[in-house]
């Protein structure tokens, strides 16, 4: 798909006006990756066979990190049902490990729903104390994903 400068400007304008922080579109013969602000672009998407129906990744609604429990840890719940991925793709490093410091907007995992990749931000600041589900496991809406020692 040949794009003119006009087109690119138009795309950037749309993304600027949206609340997305990152957008990736991969279709046959066309690939677009835009990151808003000064965020580090994340690694390549999961290495699935290229499909024309691959949907753009989008950032999930920030989940409401639960109040710290008796042991002082906060929980990051799944903002949606889907398949839990710890990394952008099988060969890549996980977004976070136990001990990683996170801020509310730090992406901690991806939840896939029918090829739609949803980035999940931490929603809380602190240090990851536990990663609960296994990689590639189905997680339910509201299921605890991470436990975080609040900063």
């Amino acid at each position: 798909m040949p794009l003119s400068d006009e087109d690119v400007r138009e795309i950037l304008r749309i993304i600027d006006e949206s609340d997305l922080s990152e957008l990736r579109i991969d279709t046959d013969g066309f690939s677009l990756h835009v990151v808003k602000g000064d965020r580090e672009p994340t690694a390549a998407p999961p290495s699935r066979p290229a499909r024309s129906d691959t949907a753009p990744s989008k950032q999930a609604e920030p989940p409401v990190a639960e109040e710290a429990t008796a042991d002082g840890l906060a929980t990051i719940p799944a903002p949606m049902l889907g398949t839990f991925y710890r990394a952008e793709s099988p060969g890549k490093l996980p977004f976070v490990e136990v001990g990683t410091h996170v801020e509310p907007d730090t992406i901690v995992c991806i939840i896939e729903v029918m090829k739609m990749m949803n980035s999940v931000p931490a929603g809380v600041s602190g240090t990851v104390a536990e990663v609960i589900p296994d990689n590639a496991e189905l997680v339910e809406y509201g299921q605890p994903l991470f436990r975080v020692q609040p900063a």
Partner: protein
Amino acid sequence: MKRIKRVFVANRGEIALRVVCACRELGLETVVGASEADRDGLAAREADRMVCIGPAPAAQSYLRDDLVVQAALGTECDAIHPGYGFLSESPKLAARAREQGLIFVGPPPEVIELSGDKLRARAEAERAGVPVLPGKEVASDSEAKKTAREIGYPVLVKAAGGGGGRGIKLARDPDELKDLLSLARSEAGAAFGDDRVYLERFVASARHVEVQIAADEHGAVVHLGERDCSVQRRYQKVVEQAPAPQLDPATRNALTAEAVAFAKAIGYQNLGTVEFVLDTDSGEHFFLEINCRIQVEHPVTEAVTGRDLVAMQLHIADGEPLGFTQTDVVFDGHAIECRLNAEDVAHGFMPSPGTLSLFSVPELLQLRVDTHLCAGSTIPPYYDSLMAKLIAHAEGREAAIDVLQEALEDLDVEGVETNRMLLMSVLGHDDFHRGAVTTDWLERAIV
């Protein structure tokens, strides 16, 4: 079952529980996809597994075909039962399930799509020799005016994407028609994503009679008799029965034969319901629509035929032949269902959600109760207000009415408002005892 071992139940309430129970009897495992509001519901508890598919509002859970399919795949189900309402007639869910190698318990997506387009369904019915109401699609105001003149006033304005009583307006004269048309178009566009409207003759004195059909994947189609659902309020059914009272045999034969012919013509598969309107003044009958799902009122058909319709859906979806022919279908007695709703009849039938401090339905010999509620259950405000279906099956119609009256009298319910008194008024009314009533009767005589 050959292919189906584990069924994903994409619904809630009494029908989710009904499907779970049917599966259990067939030796199938179940996974219920519940919203956050239904996590602790009876269906979720009775299933082998529950997964929470999303927040309480249906648009974020029960209406999300992507979540349903993902959850079914993630729990290694091989079939999806959609129940009624929600995604039960979504060609998108049916297609998505098929793409992912899942069995959708219902007709193929192409058939659902055709049936959802009321204009296409009308045309197919006509082609199959089934009488349809005089009417047609109207693209402009002038065309509408001309068509209405041909049909005669009053005339119904219907949305092509509507159905199930939704998207219908009545125009009494050309001025009203003009006003209604643009409104109907914009409403239809917003509600169904399809702004096509059509005009149809309004039957002033009408009965709603529908035929249950069953079709396997090998071309066999049978009917399981009719149901009369004329006790309605604003196109919503309140009391249903089988057989239809005072239906002359010639009409019954015509309705059932036409329902089967129509189902064959469109390549229907699995269970479905062909709805007809009967004009009690002229004695004519006309095709209304076909519903591609299990109906709320299916238990009255189960009662009089002695067949489990949900099990039948699963067998058909598994690829089995029906295993019986039309002559094997025999009818026994009379069955009546009333829908107990959590609603405040005195205040415009406002839904009445809340927690049931008390709920107990008497156990009677000829009574079946389909409910997902018990004392302590909460009726959330997000969904329809159906609490329970009370189904009486007796030798005769009067005896069935007696059973329901006893059940409603002895019913204990506290914590929410219900339509119990309305149901009792229907069952105790002389008109209802005499037999057939028309679809305007409830609102005229009681409400």
